[in-house]
């Protein structure tokens, strides 16, 4: 009974996902070190159509340079508060999020996509990345087939963080 009430109470405090983002990592490892860590987020079609309503000011169904600037400043950068739903650990310790570079936004198969690099050049085997939204508002989805790695092998596992679920990416 206690657990039952607790579950209801806690679950009520959390919103549930209305936005689904597929994460496509593209990573290059050289001499055991991460050389390039590029992520592409593919936002679900419904959220994308809302987003396009806001940002596609000329309505051509594409994201132009000035529209991209708007997305970066007013949408993408606001996620700094949430660490971009990415938690990086090096040698078992959580590190502050590295600098983000090369942001670009585009539309692919009706989905708005964000691409960017994390300037992280650590030892690949000691590094792990976790993705997830503790507010439970956005579902970050990582699947084996989304991952592209050169110079190492990647392993994707699910992580249970008590009240939200996430994914971990490690290297072998």
């Amino acid at each position, binding site marked *: *009974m206690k*657990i039952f*009430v607790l*579950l*209801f*109470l806690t*679950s*009520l*405090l*959390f*919103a*549930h*996902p*209305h936005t*689904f983002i597929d994460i496509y990592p593209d990573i290059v490892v050289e001499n055991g070190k991460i050389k390039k860590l590029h992520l592409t987020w593919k936002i*679900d*079609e*419904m*959220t994308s*159509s*809302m*987003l396009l*309503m*806001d940002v596609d000011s000329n309505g051509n169904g594409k994201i132009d340079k000035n529209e991209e600037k708007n997305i970066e400043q007013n*949408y993408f950068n*606001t*996620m700094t508060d*949430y660490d971009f739903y990415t938690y990086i650990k090096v040698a078992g310790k959580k590190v502050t999020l590295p600098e983000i570079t090369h942001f670009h936004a585009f539309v692919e198969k*009706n989905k708005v996509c964000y691409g960017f690099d994390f300037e992280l050049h650590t030892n690949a085997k000691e590094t792990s990345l976790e993705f997830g939204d503790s*507010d*439970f*508002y956005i*579902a970050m*989805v990582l699947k084996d087939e989304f991952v592209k790695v050169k110079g190492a092998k990647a392993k994707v596992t*699910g992580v*249970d*963080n*008590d*009240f*939200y*679920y996430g994914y971990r990416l490690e290297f072998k």
Partner: protein
Amino acid sequence: MMELYGHFMQQLVMYQYQINSYISQTIRSLNDENSFTTSLLILGIAFLYGLVHAIGPGHGKALVAVYFTSNKSDYKKAFKMGYLISIIHAISALVFTFGIFLILKTMFRRHFNELSQTTMIISAVMIIGVGLYLVYEAYKDKGKIEKKQKVKTKSEFAVAFSAGIVPCPGVMTIVLFNIVLGHYFLGVAAAIAMSIGMGLTISLAGIFSIAINKKVTTKLEKKTYLLEMMGGVLIVLLGSFLLLGAMGGHHH
């Protein structure tokens, strides 16, 4: 237990992930030749989406659960309450979506977030009010065994209204997606189908709580007012938690 819950929640998220992608593709595939069968399919998926969506957090299930655990009622009432909440939920989502779309046209996402925060605060304050009212009623009627039906109906409506007023972003998203593609009627119908699905889940939460209440009240016999009071206090707490959450959390 917690691990099991986590897996269960994740499974729900993955179901929604699949349904979400399937429904948007189906809506997009709609054309003049397949419009009838595809529309029916879309409504079917929307119903299923609502059903699964409402199992997840929110949608007033906690409120319904606490209310029915602490107030004697029958299963029919739980259905009524579940559907009352989902009707208010649907109306609120439709009004807000069409309102924002027709009046403001742009910056939908930003208004969407401000709006859901505002309605969440209103809802939380109302829930606190309902809780206080329930405590007061329980205290006033502590001598009486059977409550006046009028008081009960009033408090049931208040519970449903305070829980349902927050528009469901899931419903709003589907409605808007349909509007953007020019399917105005289908958008409204999908909102209704999804709400019927959610109503069923919320009703089940109520039925589950009534079953618990039946067990507890037979033990308490004539002191049911104590349970009702506890329920009221719990609802006040719930509202306070929600208020804190709504004021602290800013979504994007």
